[in-house]
């Protein structure tokens, strides 16, 4: 059996479990389903962050900006202009993508300079959300944001509905990421990583490609932020632009394997669910510490993350079986 075929089988099985198994197992358990939704929300941002890092070659410390802009755009459109929630959610992504255009000048910067510039942008957007009181509700934020509607008798405003929405967002984001990676764009972006000057010489529009990745990453993060706003039904600037929306996805992506497509998703599910379901009941006031130690151990023993480690193990076992 080839590795590609094996990967496809694993992916189909994982999707079947996600779309059928989880609703059957935890559909009646709002608590566990709520935790899975929160983990998938982080996973969505982690995929967008990894996409920008892997394909665009940019390390971002400011994805909270896209998350916040997406959530505010969607919430305001739904609350004040009566835009249907699903349309508002997509427009939230568009809003975040548009906001990323303001960050294009930062593309001239590299490495830590880009990371810091984008962090500063995030802070600017937070201040704007605080000061634009008539639109955003200012520091008080927005309460009772419209929830997802009932469609064909299925209530998407409930936990299970929210789960299916965020799962679909994450799956589509990962597929888009994978499709770009395999395309000629992906090849050009990969070549850019090795030497940007050389790729420019052969006619690759590197700045355009990097800008496209930034906009796409912002769009995905904005949609996830918009989903979260309608799911939690509440927003304020501190929450929407919290650094947690940057730090946790980065930790999740690194834990899971940020150079793989599904690594950030696996990482987010692993760190959030293990922390909340396993470590928190054991150590209610210091469980984050265990998570930190686990993350350090992962970086030390498998710098590529969880997914590459699992893959290596599967390949080893497969070789043993053949032997």
């Amino acid at each position, binding site marked *: 059996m080839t590795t590609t075929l094996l990967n496809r089988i694993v992916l189909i099985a994982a999707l079947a479990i996600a779309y059928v198994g989880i609703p059957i197992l935890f559909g009646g358990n*709002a608590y566990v389903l*709520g935790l899975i939704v929160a983990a998938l*929300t982080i996973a969505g941002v982690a995929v967008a962050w990894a996409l920008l890092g892997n394909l665009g070659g940019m390390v971002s410390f400011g994805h909270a900006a896209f998350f916040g802009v997406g959530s505010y755009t969607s919430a305001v459109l739904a609350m004040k202009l009566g835009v249907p929630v699903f349309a508002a959610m997509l427009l939230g992504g568009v809003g975040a993508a548009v906001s990323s255009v303001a960050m294009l000048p930062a593309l001239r910067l590299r490495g830590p300079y880009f990371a810091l510039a984008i962090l500063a942008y995030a802070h600017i957007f937070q201040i704007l959300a605080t000061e634009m009181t008539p639109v955003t509700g*200012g520091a*008080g934020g927005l309460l009772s944001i419209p929830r997802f509607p009932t469609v064909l008798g299925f209530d998407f405003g409930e936990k299970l509905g929210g789960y299916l929405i965020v799962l679909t967002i994450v799956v589509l984001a990962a597929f888009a990421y994978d499709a770009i990676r395999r395309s000629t764009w992906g090849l050009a972006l990969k070549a850019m990583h090795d030497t940007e000057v050389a790729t420019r010489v052969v006619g690759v529009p590197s700045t355009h490609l990097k800008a496209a990745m930034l906009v796409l990453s912002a769009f995905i993060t904005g949609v996830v932020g918009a989903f979260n706003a309608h799911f*939690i039904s509440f927003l304020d600037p501190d929450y929407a632009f919290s650094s947690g929306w940057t730090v946790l996805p980065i930790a999740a992506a690194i834990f899971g394997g940020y150079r793989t497509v599904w690594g950030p998703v696996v990482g987010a599910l692993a760190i959030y669910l293990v922390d*909340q379901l396993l470590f928190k009941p054991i150590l209610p*006031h210091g469980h984050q510490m265990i998570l930190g130690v686990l993350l350090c151990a992962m970086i030390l023993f498998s710098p590529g993350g969880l997914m590459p480690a699992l893959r290596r193990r599967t390949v080893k076992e497969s070789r043993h079986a053949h032997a």
Partner: protein
Amino acid sequence: MTRTIANLVTVSALALSVALGAGAAQAKEFLLGSELPLTGSLARVGQGMHEGIAVAIDMANKSYAGKHSFKVQTIDDETSPAKGVAAVEKLAGDGVVAITGGYGSNIIGPASEAAQKAGLVYITSGGVSPELTQRGYPTFFRINNTDGYALAMIGLIQEMGAKKVSIVYLNKDATSSLAKQVNTALTAKGVTVGMHEFDGSTSDFKPLMNKVKLQDRPDVIAMVGYENDYVGILRASKVLKPQVKAMVGVWSLATAQMAKEFPDLMENVYGTSMLPYPVEFTQPEAVEFAATYKKLFNKDPDYLGQFGYVQTRLLIDAVVRADEAGTLGKGGLPDELRKTDANTLIGRVTFDKNGDNLNFTHRMGQHQGGKVVLVWPQDAANGKMNFPAVPW
């Protein structure tokens, strides 16, 4: 004859055993839920309320001994709205009868919405945003609100006879709405008010206080923020020494902790406080509360513990009433809680149709020589205010 007496004794013994048996069957253990920030940026205030809740449980177990017993299951929301919602859902799944706790309007909002969905009563003293009660959730209750804090600050400033006031306030929901309320009330009474907003990341207040000093020249500086903000404002004021007659703040300021940690900054500063420090209680319930607090935590109670205690005790009493009326399992707890009319450690508590306690009025205390003396209103005062007086 002997046989008749023997029969009587047997029948009496049977009747007694049936009566005792019936009594024992009625005794129930009630599990309350508590969702609080025990870690994260609101950990200190969350811990304070948590202690008050523990005292309420301990005292209720004593007063209902032999009849009922109470337990509380606490989940740390890590100062995160999403985790607050998850905590409420977990508590609902574990079968709690109601939820007491919550700190920060931004966490209480979604958490109480989750409680509403689960049909659980959610009672708090940690969120004063007007929007929380404007939602009209039948299961949401709170014992304090912005109005009570504003009334105390306005009352004290009026008693001082200030003509010019500068309000320095943090740009958060609760602080902004309180500052604006004080501004409106004082302006209506002919006081000249200067409004000065600052951001939560402000650490150097000297430019702001210099502006207040040179531009406003107020009689009183009113501070509306949290502990770190007060410390920053007072440090800057101590350097710049504006010619004011009083420095007045609200919550988290007139506390024993501030008196101990910042004695050089706190002298003569005012803040809202239900209790003097050292605590002086005269009511039997208050004396028992202080003693239980001391027994459980080896320290004097503070206002956070007091609020946590009151909200939980009111909830427990309503749970017992609803159980006796046979409505507890039928969603009767919100109605029973709405019938509350009690004189508590924070004054009279009743709830309107939105679950707000419209009787709530705070008291003002002043730091005097390492103590907190209640100075407003007159009927609650245990000392005179030093006026005019500032920390420098």
